[in-house]
């Protein structure tokens, strides 16, 4: 494998939608449109013909029934040529990062020169599903031909058949260990003694940092406004999650959600379920030259790793370890680090694992990578304030990272996130502007 010479992969431009809590501003946006306008914006920003994008890869978790391959729909709605190949990938919370990774591999090994990669999620539109009993009833009813047969099929009906399965709730429960994501965070808090106060403090910082970034106009550089409202005649320009009036005291009043009596994880120190999308135009050096592109960054490498599903929140620790080894870098080389905030407890756990040799060892690492200076970690807030649209967050944090590196005129950055099911993913990028 090592004999193969890999090409440089450029992140030409990355943009994202504003993010809004599920059931609010973005709830009625037709799912593909969360991302198609971003792709159109990327294309509008350069002089690239609409028929030269080799592939479009989109991460998506909810897989809306109407769009079995939503990546393709995104490509077409964005006005890309009909011959453009497009597909959808699913690596749960890291789907957007998986999309970028696939684009990276394809460009690096020379199979593609121009790709669009990102993710999108409408958690608002995740459905209620008929339960097994009701589904069986429908199947029997459809098979029944005569009226008596039909009546017989109907006769088994009982009111509980109508109790629906909430797709989003089921999706957030690990099928292997049968724990809800919040419960996995509680395990980390218990085992590493991460206190409620530490968590609330972290969550509060997320809001304050996001509010500050908004007021400084930083978010405008990465967000493309999207048309919203029942008549699509309003523009949403900012994330609606961050609260300027957030306080540690206020957060302290919330009841634990997943372990009612002894728990520490609340709705306030977890990320809200959210709608949003993000996308990158990625290119080879040949394409950069051919179309006279001015890339914002280079994608250095990526890494995914697995661990026990009930401790999925520690995934970033393993992924950071993996990606730094691949890139041949130290943690201190990273000028900015984005760790997606699924739960405050989980991010604090990862930070513990980075500096504490014992914790690192417990998760199979042979060294502690060190500490991340406070100003370099999630400098513009994270998922707790901004939300976590699962299909998009994997690429959203890279968008935010790339823009922050550019602002700081810094060099290397790392983005990582935990993945439901017990994995972590990480990406290292290099600012070249």
């Amino acid at each position, binding site marked *: 494998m090592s004999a193969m010479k890999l090409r440089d992969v450029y992140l030409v431009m990355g943009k994202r939608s504003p993010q809004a809590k599920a059931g609010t501003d973005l709830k009625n946006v037709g799912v593909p449109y969360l991302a198609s306008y971003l792709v159109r914006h990327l294309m509008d920003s350069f002089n690239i013909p609409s028929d030269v994008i080799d592939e479009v890869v989109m991460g998506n978790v909810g897989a809306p029934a109407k769009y079995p391959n939503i990546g393709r729909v995104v490509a077409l709605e964005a006005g890309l040529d009909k011959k453009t190949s497009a597909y959808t990938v699913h690596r749960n919370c890291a789907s957007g990062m998986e999309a970028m990774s696939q684009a990276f591999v394809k460009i690096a090994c020379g199979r593609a020169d121009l790709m669009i990669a990102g993710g999108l999620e409408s958690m608002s539109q995740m459905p209620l599903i008929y339960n097994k009993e009701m589904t069986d009833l429908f199947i029997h009813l459809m098979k029944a031909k005569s009226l008596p047969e039909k009546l017989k099929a109907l006769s088994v009906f009982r009111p509980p058949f109508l109790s629906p399965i909430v797709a989003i709730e089921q999706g957030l429960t690990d099928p292997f260990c049968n724990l809800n994501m919040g419960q996995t965070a509680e395990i980390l808090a218990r085992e590493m003694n991460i206190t409620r106060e530490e968590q609330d403090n972290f969550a509060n910082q997320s809001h304050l940092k996001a509010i500050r970034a908004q007021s400084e106009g930083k978010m405008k550089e990465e967000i493309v*406004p999207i048309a919203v409202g029942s008549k699509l005649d309003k523009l949403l320009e900012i994330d609606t999650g961050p609260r300027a009036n957030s306080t540690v005291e206020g957060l302290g009043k919330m009841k634990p959600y997943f372990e009612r009596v002894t728990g520490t994880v609340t709705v306030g120190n977890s990320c809200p379920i959210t709608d949003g999308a993000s996308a990158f135009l990625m290119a080879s050096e040949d394409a950069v030259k051919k179309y006279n592109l001015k890339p914002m960054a280079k994608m250095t490498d990526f890494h995914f790793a697995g661990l026990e599903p009930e401790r999925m929140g520690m995934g970033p620790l393993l992924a950071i370890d993996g990606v730094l080894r691949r890139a041949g870098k130290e943690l201190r080389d990273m000028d900015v680090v984005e760790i997606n905030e699924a739960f405050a407890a989980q991010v604090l756990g990862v930070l513990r694992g980075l500096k504490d040799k014992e914790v690192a060892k417990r998760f199979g690492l042979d060294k502690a990578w060190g500490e991340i200076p406070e100003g370099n970690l999630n400098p513009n807030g994270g998922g707790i304030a901004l939300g976590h649209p699962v299909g998009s967050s994997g690429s959203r944090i890279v968008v935010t990272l790339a823009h922050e590196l550019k602002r700081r005129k810094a060099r290397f950055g790392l983005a990582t996130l935990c993945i439901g099911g017990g994995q972590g993913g990480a990406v290292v990028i290099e600012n070249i502007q």
Partner: protein
Amino acid sequence: MVGNTRIKYETKEQIAYIGFGYNNDKAQTVLDQETLLELADIVKDVHAKGRELKGLILHSVKPGCFLAGADIKLIETMQTESEAASGAEKGQLLYNGIEDLAIPTVAVVDGPCLGGGLEMVLACKAIICSDSSKTLLGLPEVKLGILPGFGGTYRLPRRIGLPKALDAILTGKMIKPKSAYKLHLVDAVYPKERLMAQALNHLKKSPKGKSLKETLESFATENFVTRKIIFQKARESVLKKTKGFYASPLKILDVMEAGMGKGRSGYLALEAQAFGELCVSDTSRNLRHLFFLMEGAKKYNGPKSTHPVPDLKRGAALGAGTMGGGIAWLMADNGMAPLMKDLNKDALELGMKQSARNFYGALKRRKITQDEFERKQRSIVPVTDFTGFQNVDLIIEAIVENLEIKQKVYRELEKYIRPDCIVASNTSSLRVTQMAEAFEHPERFAGLHFFNPVHMMPLVEIVTHPKADPATIEALYNWVIKVKKTPVIVKDGPGFLVNRILMPYLNEAGFLLEEGVSIKDLDNACLNFGMPMGPCRLLDEIGIDVAVKVAKIMHDALGERAKSNTSSKKLIENQFFGKKSKKGFYLYDENEKEIGLNEAVVSALPKSKKMDEIDIQMRVFLPMINEAAYILSDGLVLRPSDVDLALIFGIGFPPFRGGLLRYADSEGIDRIYRAIESFSKSVDADRYAPSPFLKKMVDEKKKFYDL
């Protein structure tokens, strides 16, 4: 049959095929003289063969067009009422021949099947059609001021019932395959590739009996009392819509009501007679004239380009106000994924609202689906910078009407666009020639004047200037046609074409008010002439402040004949700006609906003076004709028909009059000239100074349409 040139007639396995569109290399097949003669021979032959044949299939050998109707030139040849009536009778006899065939007959329709074409297939026992988007069925005769004269008024109610037939014949609407099936106008709809095979099956099928619902329906509509009510309601609705200016819908109702009690020959005799009467009426002649003008306008006739004309695919609207939003809507509706640029979010939202309102209206009227609504509205890309402008082929600027600001924007804009990108300005009052000076490449620039509201107003003025490239003008012309608007090319000048001719109409209205003519009398005189609204109501619509501004520009540019009086200025002082401020000559409610005269204005005007309606009409319409003569003599438009098209589609000049200049021709140029001259003595020497061009026409005994 030997020697056929228009119809392919053949017999295969005892089935006769009549194929229209034979040897036709034009886009459409029409029923011309030769086709009708050939068809008569063929029908005779089919009758003669009798039981030798098992069936007859009428189809088109030309894909995508069945029969687009009777050749309108054929109608033009009918000079007298009896000539026209007997022409109709011949067609009726021919179609009776098809109806009377003892063998099964199936019409196979792919593409338009209109007018005489639909009347023909109605004489068949079964009609099947393709699901192609080109397939449209209808009896549009009413739009030409006539009625279906080949038995359409007789056969359509028999096939689909009286109420639906009345609706189709009175509106002349085009019916799509799916609706045609629901109406029971066609027996089945198939993919076009499967039509001919299915036609054979339909030959074997016996006609379906009526369903219970249909039986009930016909029971409800086919008795004396309900019929009477249906006709009465239809008559009321026609009068409301046409204000009595159009004879043909009323005639259609007369024929169909009187015919109901009669047999085929009695009914058809009534139809033929009415056809004759309508054919020679002025209204029908004028509407046919208009039809030819519209057909003529579909082809570009401006300056020829020596290099290829660009195809305008991606669009941009500069400025997101009412007009910018309307233009973005038009581009989005035509798949141009337009960029829409303005300074900030609030400004952009105004444009998005404008476009959303139009698309939402289409959604409510079920013209588009919810998905299409979202796709189309979202295809508009709101921007505050020039992102994407390098990929755009057409930019239409609709920012504030200020020459310096526009020129500054153009200089900035040109840095971001491709050399072959066309830029057009939606200016209504500035001079395009001056605007062009800001461009490094003025050849890419022209005026493109839309009327407000964009989605309702069909006319677009394409304003040229000396440095414009003919390819720019032709590309814009083609684009305007593509987005289903009517283009008129006009050279740069104050007010271009429509506003310049509108100027004396509005000015003279102001002077009449000052003389003591009431708002009501004035507006009514113009309504009774056939205008969609009177001048005072129109001023409210335009905005009285805007009108005053434009009037000043006209006065400055054209001199004393374009002077206006001060009554409008007084309105502005009182904040009566018209509809937009809810108060003008009239008052308006929250929904911008007119709710009566503004008494404050009425009482401020001089006390009432009675003037004959005809005199009021002459006072406002004669100076328009005079101004049009100036425009023609200045060579601002190529042909008089441009003036007529522009006024009909730009301000709703009554179509039944065929246009302003057609009206002048019909009144007699010498009479018009004398009347203007007499006003120049009795009213005002400047405003009614007769155009020398008009004088020359009188001397040379020429009409406008002789030019």
